[in-house]
């Protein structure tokens, strides 16, 4: 089987990103490359161009990388990183952070390709909790 798609979680909060990663690893994605880019370089709430770039590089195994963000500047900073990378197989996913990450990770762990991972995550926009 090809290497799984990598997942990058970008959040203003390092603990939010790492907590979400812990959830993904328990929900069935234990062997999945999941990296976090939470907070600023000096540990405050915010987002870091450098951390996002490093997280992407760490899970880039050849099958593409899906980047999920919480909101606001996380989206803007991630977009700046992706614009500079200019790769078609490193994509920003437009989904709720938690639900999108769960959907993306579970399907990525089955060996699904990047397009399938993206559509699973984006489906989260239309799935109600109740």
């Amino acid at each position, binding site marked *: 089987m090809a290497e799984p798609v990598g997942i990058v979680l970008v959040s203003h909060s390092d603990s939010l990103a790492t907590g979400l990663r812990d959830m993904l690893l328990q929900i069935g994605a234990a062997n999945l490359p999941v990296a976090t880019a939470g907070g600023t370089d000096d540990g405050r709430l915010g987002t870091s161009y450098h951390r996002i770039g490093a997280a992407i590089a760490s899970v880039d195994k050849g099958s593409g990388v899906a980047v999920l963000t919480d909101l606001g500047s996380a989206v803007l900073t991630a977009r700046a990183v992706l614009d500079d990378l200019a790769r078609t197989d490193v994509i920003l996913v437009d989904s709720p952070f938690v*639900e999108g990450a769960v*959907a993306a990770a579970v399907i990525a762990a089955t060996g699904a390709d990047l397009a399938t991972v993206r559509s699973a995550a984006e489906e989260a926009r239309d*799935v109600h909790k109740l």
Partner: protein
Amino acid sequence: MSTSFEASAETEVVLPAHLHARPAGALVQAAAQFSSTMEISYGDKRVNARSVLAVMTLGALAGSTVVLRARGADADEAVKAAAEVLASAE
């Protein structure tokens, strides 16, 4: 209705635990190993067994019965594998 003579299979499972995030994830992993499509239904709700979020929205509780339906060449094996995963969920 399908116009081909495609195989299909169906089985019921009594859930030993609530169908929450972890078992839903395990079900998706199991279903994805087969080429057949699979649906899981609970009451009058029926969803794609490969969509972890949709499976969680079923809200299926411990002790209740869900139905797995697969369609495709390996439908039998697919429902068996998925039923085993659900039956051993914690």
